[in-house]
C-alpha cells in the first residue's frame, strides 16, 4: 500500500492534477491503507492545518499587498525612486530593482510587486528603447524580492511549518534582501552600458521634491510594520491588519485612488490568492504526516549521521534539490520538502532561520526556472512578452540569484547576524 500510495502521488503530481489533491490523495492512501487510520483524518487535517493565528497573517498581508497596488502607494514610491536612480546608466532597470525591494517591503509577495513596479516602469523601459525580453526579465527577477524582503508570505508559511519565529525570519530577510538588490543591479548596469540604453528623462529638483513628499506615506508603511513587530507593539498577524488599515486610509484619503469597488475587488482577489495557498498547505500537512508515519525523515536523518555529511554539504545538496524541484513546482508547493528534511536539519544543528532564508531564495529561483516558471509566465501575460524572450532576459539575473544562494549557504551570518543582534 505504501508503494501504491507513492505511485498514485507521483502519477497525479506529474500528470497535472492540482497539487493539493495529489498531496492529499497520496497522503490519505498511505495513512488509511498502510497505517490503518480512519478516513475522517482528511476532515481533521483539512481544518486543523490552517486553523492558526500565525497563518492568519497570510490573508492579511495578501490583502495589504492588493490594497497597496490599488491605492497608488506603490506607484508613488516607484516615481520617487526612479527620479533618483533613473539618470545613471541602466537607470530604469536599476529603478525597477530598487523599487521592487521597497515595494516588497509593503506587499509581502511577488505578484503585487510586479503589478506596482511593472505598470510604471515597463512603459518607461519601452520608451527608452529597452528590448522587451530584457525589460520583462528585469521586472520578473526583481519582483521576486517581494518573497525575501519582509513582510514575506513565504516566511510566514515556513515559520509556521518549522516552528520558527516569524518576527526573527522577517528581520533575517533584510540583509540578504538588500544584498540581493545590490547584486541584481550589477548585471543591469553592465547590460545597459553594453547596449547603450538611455537614462530616464531628467526630473526637476522641484518635481523630485514633490515626488518624495508624495512617497512619504508609502515609506512609513514598512517602518510601521517592522517597527511594530520589533518593538513588541504587535505580532506579525496584527501588523498585517494594521498594514491593511493603513493602506486603506492612505489610499482613500491621501492618494484618493481607493473606491468601494477597488476595495471589494482587492478583498476578493486576496481571498482567492490566499485560498490557493492555504488549501495547498492542507495537502502538504497531510502528506507530511504520512511521510512522518512511514519514517522517511528519520531515514534521511540516519543517512546524514552515518554518512558523515556536514551541515554545509547538506545545505548545498538541499539547495540543488530546491532548484530542481523549483523547475517543476511552485514555491508554495516546495514547502512539502520541509517536514522531510527537518529531523536531519536538527541533527546537523543547522539554524532554522538560516535555512529559512536559503529556502526563500531557492523558491525565488524556482519560480523563474522553466518549465514550471510561474513568475515568467505571469510577467509574459501581464506585459504581452513571449516566454522565450523573458527567459533570455531573466538569465543574467537568475545566475546572480544562484550565486547569491550559495553565498548565503556558505556565510550564514548574512542571514543570522541581524536577528541575533536584535533579539539576542
Amino acid at each position, binding site marked *: 500500500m505504501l508503494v501504491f500510495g507513492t505511485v498514485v502521488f507521483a502519477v497525479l503530481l506529474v500528470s497535472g492534477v492540482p*497539487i493539493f489533491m495529489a498531496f492529499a*490523495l497520496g497522503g490519505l492512501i498511505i495513512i488509511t491503507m498502510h497505517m490503518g487510520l480512519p*478516513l475522517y483524518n482528511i476532515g481533521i487535517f483539512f481544518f486543523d492545518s490552517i486553523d*492558526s493565528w500565525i497563518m*492568519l497573517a497570510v*490573508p492579511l498581508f495578501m490583502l495589504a499587498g492588493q490594497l497597496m497596488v490599488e491605492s497608488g502607494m506603490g506607484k508613488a514610491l516607484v516615481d520617487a525612486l526612479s527620479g533618483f536612480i533613473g539618470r545613471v546608466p541602466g537607470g530604469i532597470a536599476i529603478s525597477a530593482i530598487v523599487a521592487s525591494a521597497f515595494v516588497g517591503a509593503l506587499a509581502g509577495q511577488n505578484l503585487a510587486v510586479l503589478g506596482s513596479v511593472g505598470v510604471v516602469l515597463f512603459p518607461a523601459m519601452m520608451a527608452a528603447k529597452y528590448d522587451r525580453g530584457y525589460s520583462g526579465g528585469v521586472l520578473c527577477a526583481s519582483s521576486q524580492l517581494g518573497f525575501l524582503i519582509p513582510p514575506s508570505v513565504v516566511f510566514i508559511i515556513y515559520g509556521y511549518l518549522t516552528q520558527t519565529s516569524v518576527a526573527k525570519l522577517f528581520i533575517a530577510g533584510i540583509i540578504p534582501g538588500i544584498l540581493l538588490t545590490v547584486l541584481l543591479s550589477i548585471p543591469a548596469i553592465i547590460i545597459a552600458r553594453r547596449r547603450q540604453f538611455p537614462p530616464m528623462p531628467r526630473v526637476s529638483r522641484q518635481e523630485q521634491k514633490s515626488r518624495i513628499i508624495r512617497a512619504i506615506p508609502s515609506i512609513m508603511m514598512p517602518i510601521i510594520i517592522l517597527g511594530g513587530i520589533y518593538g513588541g507593539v504587535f505580532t506579525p498577524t*496584527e501588523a*498585517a491588519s494594521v498594514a491593511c488599515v493603513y493602506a486603506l486610509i492612505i489610499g482613500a484619503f491621501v492618494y484618493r485612488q481607493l473606491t468601494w469597488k477597488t476595495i471589494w475587488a482587492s478583498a476578493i482577489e486576496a481571498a482567492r490568492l490566499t*485560498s490557493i495557498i492555504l488549501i495547498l498547505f492542507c495537502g502538504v500537512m497531510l502528506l507530511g504526516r504520512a511521510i512522518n508515519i512511514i519514517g522517511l525523515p528519520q531515514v534521511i536523518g540516519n543517512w546524514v549521521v552515518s554518512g558523515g555529511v556536514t551541515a554545509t554539504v547538506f545545505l548545498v545538496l538541499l539547495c540543488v534539490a530546491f532548484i530542481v524541484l523549483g523547475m*517543476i513546482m511552485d514555491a508554495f508547493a516546495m514547502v512539502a520538502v520541509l517536514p522531510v528534511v527537518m529531523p536531519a536539519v536538527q541533527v546537523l544543528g543547522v539554524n532554522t532561520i538560516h535555512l529559512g532564508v536559503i529556502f526563500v531564495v531557492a523558491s525565488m529561483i524556482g519560480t523563474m526556472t522553466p518549465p514550471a516558471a510561474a513568475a515568467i509566465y505571469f510577467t509574459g501575460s501581464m506585459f504581452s512578452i513571449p516566454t522565450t524572450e523573458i527567459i533570455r532576459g531573466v538569465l543574467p539575473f537568475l545566475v546572480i540569484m544562484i550565486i547569491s544562494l550559495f553565498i548565503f549557504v556558505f556565510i550564514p551570518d548574512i542571514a543570522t547576524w541581524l536577528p541575533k543582534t536584535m533579539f539576542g
Partner: protein
Amino acid sequence: MCKLAAVNRVINTFCRCAAGAVILIIMLLVFAEVISRYILGLSHEFVPAISSWCMVWMTYFMLGVIHKARQHISIDILPNRLPLQYRTPLLTLFDVISLIFAILLCYGGTIYDLMVRQSDIYAVTVQFIPMWIVRICVPLGGVFLALFSCEHLINDARYLIKRTKVEP
C-alpha cells in the same frame, strides 16, 4: 445541465462575495483587537479563534470557485504539451479525480463533524459557538468542489460527444 450551471453561477457569486466579506471582517476584527488592547487596555480571547475560523471558512468558500476557473496550482507541463484532442480527455480524468477527492472531503469532513457534534465540544476561548458548526466548512467545501467538478465533467462530456460526431 442548465439547472446545474445556474445553481453553480449562484454558488460562485455567493462564495466570492462571502470570501471577500470574510477577509474584510478578519481585518477589522484583528485591527479592533489591537486598538482595544492599546487604547482600552482590553484583550479579547475570542478574537484569535474566531478570526482563524473565518480564514478557514474563507478558504472553503473559494475552494470550488478556484476549481471552476482551473486556477489551483498544478504542474501543468504535460497537459500543455499534449495535442488538443488528448487534452480534453486528460482534463476529464482530472475532473473525475477532483470529484472523488470532493466526495472524500465531504465524507471525511461529515464523519468527523458528526463525532464532534456527538461529543458536544466547544473551544475553550469561544463558549458560544459549538465546534461542529465551525468545522462544517470542510464538508461544505467538498460539496462546492463536487458541484463545480460535475459541471466541468458535463462540459467535457458534451465537448467529447460533439467532437466524436464531427470526426467520422
